[in-house]
């Protein structure tokens, strides 16, 4: 987590990195800063993994649109692969991809 903006001027202390002890957790389970879902590594749930083939991909962005975890990595308007920390292996990208073979699911979570 980036240095919490809140910790400076706020009454609420930001939790430290790692797994904090009970007294280090903010009151009432509040999230003290926005956008911290990025901290949650949903990639650890993965039992299958999408394999992207840039040779076939047309960068139509369908997979980017459908991915529930925002795990399709796009650079300069081209799909370049999958965010391994957050891709949970649901297979939606491969199912929705209109180009045969551009995104295929393979068994096993590890890349």
């Amino acid at each position, binding site marked *: 987590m980036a240095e919490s903006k809140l910790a400076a001027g*706020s009454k*609420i202390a930001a939790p430290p990195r790692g797994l*904090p002890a009970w*007294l280090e957790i903010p*009151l*009432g389970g509040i*999230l*003290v800063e926005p956008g911290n879902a990025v901290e949650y590594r949903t990639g650890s749930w993965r039992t299958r993994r999408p394999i992207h083939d840039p040779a076939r991909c047309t960068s139509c962005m369908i997979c980017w649109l459908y991915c529930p975890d925002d795990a399709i990595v796009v650079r300069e308007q081209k799909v370049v692969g999958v965010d391994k920390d957050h891709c949970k292996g649901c297979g939606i990208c491969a199912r929705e991809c209109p180009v045969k073979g551009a995104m295929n699911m393979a068994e096993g979570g590890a890349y």
Partner: protein
Amino acid sequence: MPRLIGLTGDGATAEAMRQIDPDVVAAYPITPQTEIVERFAEFVADGLVNTEFVAVESEHSAMSACCGSSAAGARTITCTSSQGLALMHEVLYIAAGNRLPIVLINVNRTLSAPLNIHCDHSDSMGSRDSGWIQLYCENVQEVYDTVIQAVRIAEHPQVMLPVMVNLDGFVLSHSVERLELLDDEQVREFVGPFQPVVDLLDLEHPPALGALVAPEFHFEHKYAQWLATDGARAVIEGVGCEFGERFGRSYGLLDLYRLEDAELALVVLGSTAGTARAVVDDLRERGIRAGTLRIRCFRPFPADEIVGALQGKKAVAVMDRAGTQGGEGGPVFGEVRAALHTRGVLLPVINYIYGLGGRDVPAASVARVFTHLGQVAEAGKVDRAVNYLDLRGWN
């Protein structure tokens, strides 16, 4: 200057709420609601308060609206009774777990079935483990004083927990008693402004409340909540003491009556304590060393204080105005007995389940509990642990 008037428990509660002038009152304004909200709605309509009154479509919604408004930094109060509290049950845990300092005034009435609208403690005892602080009042004056104190207890930065103020249905809610009212200014000064620890509308640092908490964090949250609840004992005493210094009526966790040199002790909650005092006076005149211990604060449970007060007694009777179907005796009995046993104080303790569904509790019946208690003290052991006061066909 304090004013002396005659008012019901409902009226006194509404009056305290008018003086507190909360930011939001969300309530379900029909049965099982009591007159409190009806009276308060009149204050709103007459422009006597600045409160946003939210008339919702159920008690579940009432507590949900209270959670939202409290999280947004608004001082929030609601009232309910009986089935209404039961319908709030799910959301009670959310209020406590999210550390929202809502004040709820609950008129103690039994839960259906059989359908009955009269007093017992089965409603609030059903939510005793929901994480709310629970205070039980003996008379209308205490109801009024406690509603005012509840705001300070709930919002104390070391507490930040919801508080349930309980008053016995009809016995207190609908009976006119002598009441000493404080000035509006005195009340406003005592409660002060609400300074929320978490404020969802803090645009500089917008937090999120009620998000998913994974198994790696849930247990730690619950522990923090337990410690805050435990720590509330000192705050309840502190606020009750400060109230006494300012207005002449002090309150604590327990209320002891002629207990110090007593041999026979009766433990009781709520309005029955008044009857028990009269019985104690009568017994004392006849040379029987009787006394009462009224538990004002049931959550957090003041185990050390109770054991300290009961230590050295010959026998103890715990009065429960609720049962635990299938458990051994009532909820107060179980906890008092466990507290004594855990601390190695092994004295005979009996339980009386009484007054369910509004069954009257005359002095003669309380006197019979003391008679039984005398026999237990003499024998030095419990003959029958769980007893039912004035139940026809039981002996």
